[in-house]
């Protein structure tokens, strides 16, 4: 027996629509993995049993951007891939958040060459950056918590980016 025994019968809660929507959103983020390099291996480890991102409600990995609200860009993005990434980002329904995972996605990393995008944030919005090469799964979990904080600050009447 747990909490429900204290309410008895048909209990009720008082809250605001904003709080309860944000509470639902931040505990059920659906990530869209965009893994192109070694960071994707760490991302997969984060999704799997040992680190278990499902403890924080973000385990429903969607391979269709139309069903996801959290884009995890993990790995190098080259100039041939950037239009694809932008298209996938634009296909995601609002509200949506982006994690730029690892040095390559955030700033090009060691690959300061003609094919490499020097940070995806030059061409699309990024909410949280994860340092590391590659970051450990704990870092990605920490980024998820940062995203959850951002989700908690949303106002449902104004949309994610204000209107």
């Amino acid at each position, binding site marked *: 027996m747990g909490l429900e025994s204290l309410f008895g019968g048909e209990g009720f809660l008082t809250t605001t629509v904003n709080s309860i929507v944000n509470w639902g959103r931040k505990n059920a983020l659906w990530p869209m993995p965009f893994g192109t390099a070694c960071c994707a291996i760490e991302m997969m480890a984060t999704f799997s049993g040992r680190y278990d991102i499902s403890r924080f409600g973000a385990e429903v990995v969607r391979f269709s951007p139309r069903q996801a609200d959290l884009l995890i860009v993990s790995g190098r993005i080259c100039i041939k891939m950037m239009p694809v990434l*932008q298209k996938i980002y634009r296909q995601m329904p609002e509200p949506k958040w982006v994690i730029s995972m690892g040095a390559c996605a955030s700033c090009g990393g060691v690959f300061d060459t*003609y094919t490499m995008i020097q940070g995806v944030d030059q061409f699309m919005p990024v909410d949280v950056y994860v340092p590391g090469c590659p970051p450990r799964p704990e870092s990605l979990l920490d980024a998820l918590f940062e995203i959850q904080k951002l989700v908690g600050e949303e106002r449902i009447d104004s949309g994610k980016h204000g209107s």
Partner: protein
Amino acid sequence: MSEQYPAHADLPSSLQELILDTIEHRGQTQLSCKAPDHRSLLENFRHQQGYDFLVDVTAIDYLGKDTLERFEVVYVLRRRGARPDQFRLHVWLGESDPTLSSVVDLWDSARWGERETHDMFGIVFEGNPDLRRLLMPEDFPAFPLLKDYPLTGRGERRQFPRVVPRGDRMVEEEPTDYPTSIGRGMHTPEYIEEVERDSKPRE
């Protein structure tokens, strides 16, 4: 292998004369010849000597080096069976007209090798039926493995529109703070400044 069955021992003397140089190094044989002569040599290797496998086609850029010509196109040939052998044929190719006849009719595997060499060095293989870019985007304006191409490119990596939030939707915007898009604004002062900045190592 090559010590036992030297690659060019069976060449007729008329073709022997075309070979400028033979280098043996650690059991590997390297022959070199001039550009238009490679065709008759390769035909002989394919049909008379049974080199049935073209391992790779690639090139070397000797910019600034004291060599016969600027480019060397490298064919790696292999023969299997009773007299196995592998060697390289290096073909000197001038900078003013970097054009070679294709060997797709001799080895099918030349298709992608020649495409990649074209993509990276700008060498044109006449007769290749599908000489599109292989690795770089189709509208890429340069040939990145040339020695005079800067490592960080000439601003091609900044060509994209930005996806930015506007109200409740995302729109694509052309950036205004730097020149964008291949083929546009390539010779403006801003573009040249961009190239110089991109060509320097980061601090």
